[in-house]
Structure formats: C-alpha cells, structure tokens
C-alpha cells in the first residue's frame, strides 16, 4: 500500500493544482470564489493560503472579461487555470474561447500559444435545473485549436489536470460534480495521464461500450450484472474527447464486433454521433450490428426529482441496450 493510496475526485484535482503551482510560478488560478473562500465546492481549498493573491485570483462575476484576461495572461507567458463555476456559464465566455483562445496559435503562425486550462463543473443528478446542469464538451470539441478532457475517476482527473496545465494549448477540463466524492486508488507519485489516450476500463469479448465521464460507472454496473448472464462487456473510457483516441476504440470494436456509445449530454449532434461515425468509417467490416447510441434526451434538464433522472442514460438502460445489440 505504500505505493498507492485512496483519493477522491475533488482532492485529486486539487493535488494536481498544488503540484503544478509549486513546480512553476507561472501557473496561476483565476475564478470566482477560488481564493480565500476555497471554492464553492471546496475544490480550491488551501491554494490561496500557500500561493497568495497574486497567483490565486478572485474575480468579480464577469466571466467574459475575466476569461479573456486569462487568455491575455497566457499569451504573455503565464499558464492560467481559469475556473468556470458551472459549465453552463461557459456560454458567457464563448467569444473569447472560440474566436480568441482557440485561434491564437494558428493566427500567429505558431509563434504564440495559449497554455490555459478552463476547468468547469457539470452534470445532472443534483436537481440544479436547466441552467446549472449542462456539459458543453461537444460544443467545445467542434472548435479546432481546443483540447477537451472529461475524466471519469479521481486518478485520471489528477493525471489529466497535471497534463492539461503542462499542455501548451487551451484545454477544457470538465468535472462531473457527482463524481467529486468518488474515490479510487492512485499511485503515490500522482502520475500524469497523457491527453489523447483512452483507457480500457474492463476487458470483454462480446460488446464494446464507449462511455463518457460518469457514464463509465453506469457502464460498469451494467457490465457486472450482464456478467452474471455470461455476457462479457468491454468498456473503453476515451478520457479525452479531442484529440480522440480512435485507435483504442477501433481495436476493441474489431475484437467484439459490437459497439454502444454512452454519453450524459444531449444526443443530437453530440459526442456519440462523432464516435459512432468514426467506428463506422474505420471498422465497418468488423461490425455484426449497427453501432448503438445512448445519450441524454434532447430536452433541457428539469429540476423535478422525478423528471431529472429520465434525462440521461443509467445502468439499466445500458444493460437493456447491450441485450438488444447482442440479440
């Protein structure tokens, strides 16, 4: 046990910030209530005390201006981590994200980049309603120049946050709030996880489930139940939406001949469509069934305790999908 320990998601990202802020004084944190308050989800506790107000910067509620300033700081030598409290508020930053951050490297012919992390929380399941539950990673992934990360567990969250801070391009880092208290084992040196590499969560031979973020846990639950009936599920966690590790997914599908893509964001024009098309382009001749997609319904996220769980896939729906696709 001296080579690994247990850590929860919230602390894992926080430790990544401590490591990289200690290693490089150009790493700064900018956001609302990230300073002395320690973050509204306690996700930045202790940083202000150690690094002070010049490096842990509390902003007014001015997302467009503050995020644009983070980009200007990145262009002039800093490595800012900018926090958007709820992913829904990213919409306020869209001009600066899409028209500035994503294009500066291209527009400058490679002479200057924007080494910046935009971290934000997202996810359904806490009855936060239509304006506090959305995950806009598919929007972001539609913009060349950005990188998009959606970790599903604490160890990956730590390793990917370290990689994101060290990356020379703008990286969007989506954290599902309902994972914050979930724990897993992590090697004691808190290893970096490279951006753009998928992880095979579970080996199997009958069907490949490609699951995004918190959907990985639902897929595991479904796989455990299906195993009792002799159905052997392989689970791939892309971890990074852009760049996407197509090779790992395609290799898996060529082995299992069946694929289901599961996402917690809306179906239409989303990540599941992109992944399904990639499989069809690169592994069509190996498929024994059409690629199936499971994602959130094309509706806003309602606040009602009875309606909200109907929005997104869960373990039972994934289990039913597997039974349908292998039938």
């Amino acid at each position: 046990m001296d080579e690994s320990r247990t850590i929860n998601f919230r602390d894992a990202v926080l430790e990544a910030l401590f490591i990289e802020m200690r290693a490089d004084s150009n790493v700064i944190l900018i956001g609302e209530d990230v300073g002395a308050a320690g973050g509204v989800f306690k996700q930045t506790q202790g940083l202000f005390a150690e690094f002070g107000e010049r490096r842990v910067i509390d902003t007014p509620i001015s997302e467009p201006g503050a995020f644009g300033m983070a980009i200007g700081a990145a262009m002039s030598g800093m490595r800012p981590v900018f926090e958007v409290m709820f992913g829904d508020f990213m919409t306020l930053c869209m001009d600066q994200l899409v028209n500035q951050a994503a294009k500066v490297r291209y527009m400058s012919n490679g002479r200057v980049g924007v080494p910046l992390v935009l971290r934000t929380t997202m996810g359904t399941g806490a009855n936060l309603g239509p304006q506090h539950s959305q995950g806009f990673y598919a929007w972001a992934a539609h913009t060349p120049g950005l990188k998009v990360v959606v970790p599903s567990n604490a160890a990956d969250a730590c390793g990917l946050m370290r990689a994101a801070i060290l990356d020379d391009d703008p990286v969007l880092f989506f954290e599902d709030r309902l994972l914050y208290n979930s724990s897993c084992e992590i090697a004691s040196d808190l290893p970096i996880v490279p951006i753009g590499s998928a992880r095979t969560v579970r080996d199997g031979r009958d069907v490949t489930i490609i699951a995004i973020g918190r959907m990985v846990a639902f897929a595991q639950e479904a796989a455990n139940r299906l195993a009792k009936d002799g159905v052997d599920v392989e689970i791939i966690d892309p971890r990074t939406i852009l760049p996407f590790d197509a090779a790992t997914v395609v290799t898996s599908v060529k082995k299992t001949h069946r694929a289901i893509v599961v996402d917690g964001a809306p179906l239409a024009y989303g990540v599941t469509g992109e992944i399904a098309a990639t499989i069809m382009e690169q592994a069509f001749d190996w498929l024994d069934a059409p690629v199936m997609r499971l994602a959130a319904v094309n509706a806003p996220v309602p606040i009602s305790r009875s309606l909200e769980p109907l929005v997104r896939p869960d373990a039972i729906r994934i289990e039913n999908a597997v039974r349908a696709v292998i039938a």
Partner: protein
Amino acid sequence: MKKGLKTQNGASDDGQLMLSMHRTMLRIRHFEETIRKLAASGAVPGLVHLCAGQEATNVGIIAALEERDFIASHHRGHGHCIAKGAPIEELMAEILGKASGLCGGRSGSMHVIDMDRRNLGTNGIVGGGIPLAAGAALAARSRGSDDVCVCFFGDGALNQGLLHECMNMAAIWKLAVVFVCENNGYGEFTAIDDVTAGPSMPGRGKVFGIPSVMIDGMDVQAVYDAARRAVAYARAGKGPSFIICNTWRFGGHHVGDKQEYKDDDITKAWLLRDPLLKSAKVLAATGVASAKAIAQMEIDAITEMMAAADAVRRAPEPAPQALLEHIYG
C-alpha cells in the same frame, strides 16, 4: 531596417521625437494608401479597414511606450502594428495572405499577431482585444513586472460589456493598463451619438475611479502628452487610465464603403485637421525640420511602400500543407 518609433519618452517638444512621430505617421498614411490601391486592384483577400486620418492616435500613444510594453489592437490596426515596429513588407504580405506574411498569410488584416513586438494582435471581434490587453497586465502583476499594456479600441466598443468588465477589474487590481478609445465618430455605418447614452464618454471610465480624459486625437503631441502621463501612472503601480482620442477616419468602414452616412461639410472640416498637416506645421514652425526635409520624408515613405508592394505582389502564396500547421503546439 530599424525604422520603428523612437520611444525614449522625452517631452513632446523634443525635436527628435517629433521627427520620429511624423515619419511614422507618414509611413502609416502611405502604407494605408498602398493597401487601398492593392485592395482596389483585387490583390487583398477579404475585408480591409484602413486607419488613414487616425495616425496621431496610433503614433502618439505608442511613442510613450517602451519596447517591452504590450499593446492590443482592433480591426483598424495597421497603424498600431507599424508604430510598434512591425516590418512593413511582412505586414503587407500578411494583409495579402502571402506565405512571407507576419503570420504566414493565414490571418490577414484583422488578425495580425506580432508577439516579437509584444503586439497581442489586431482583432476581428469588436472589443475582443480589450481583455487580452488587461490579461497581459494581470500577468505582469503576477510576475512582479511593471510592463504596461495599452488597449486600443474604437468608439463602437464603448458599448461592449467586455470593456466595462475589464475597466472594473483593472481598477480593483490597479493593473498597468491604458484604455485608449479611438473615437472616429462611427461604429461601422452608425454614428456614435445615435447609440451611446449618457452625457460624458470619460464618465464611463470615471465611474470606476479611473482617471479619464478626452483629447484632440488629430494632434500627435497632445496624444503623446496624455499617453505619457497615463503610462507613467500605470508604471508606478497606480492603475489604469482612460484616454478618448477624438479622431476621424478619412476612408469608410472598409475599402469600398461609399460613406453615404457621412455629412460632406463635417468631413471637409475634419480633412482640414489632418494630423500630418498639423505635425508638419509644428515641425516647420519650431525649426525642427525644413519644408524640404519634410517633403523628402514623405517621398521616402512613398518609395518604401511602393517597393514593399512590388515585392509582396510577387511573393508566393502559402503552400497547401500550411493549412493544417500550427493548430496545436
């Protein structure tokens, strides 16, 4: 080819500074005239926005900076790039989309980024450069540096929320930013008075406690004096300033704009206030330069721009593989 502005930040009646500012204004004027002709001939891809008439605001402000200081510009930004020292041929090649352009010909007039000269770039989004400039100042504060950052924008950006957000943050953090509004009277085709509420434009800075002045943007010495005060204030750690330079664009919003929305009499009055006429008059009256020397400076500027245009016209287009280069590092 060291033809950049002399930026030793002396008094505005320093003869060498006056000459240097006049020369840079001439180079901007004839750069823009050359681009206008190139655009009319079809050599310029896309839209191009010229700053002829606004040279004194470009030059007077940047003359008060040191090389290490940052600027962020806007869609009418060739003059800022030149005043900050961009090589003429590379800038012109960029506007024509050529491989030898400052940005490989992929960015054009509205997206020139020139970090070698600490120019965060012209910008295709009205107000888009404002937070970039404030962010460079925030970075300077985090590093413990006293680099100053000038943020240029037009009167059109006065009504963008970003400006007010950034003024607020610059004020609370005492950032070394100089907000410079180049008020040429029109946001695209719409007169500023038709879309801007309140009795006072400087009031929009004062509400944040930011020292704010409105000056004659056709008088390069007046612009320089205001900039020098603002830069010294910023460099001393006292915080941002706001300078509104009243000026006039001699051309339309973009090349090809017929300007039917402008009143001819008002336009004539502004043409008589050409910043180059005023500067030349001061140079002659103070004995800094003879009329002949001033005329020679103009001939030199024209010659420089014609030579650049000849070279840039012949310069090669980017290779196809450049399309996918530098999307990521």
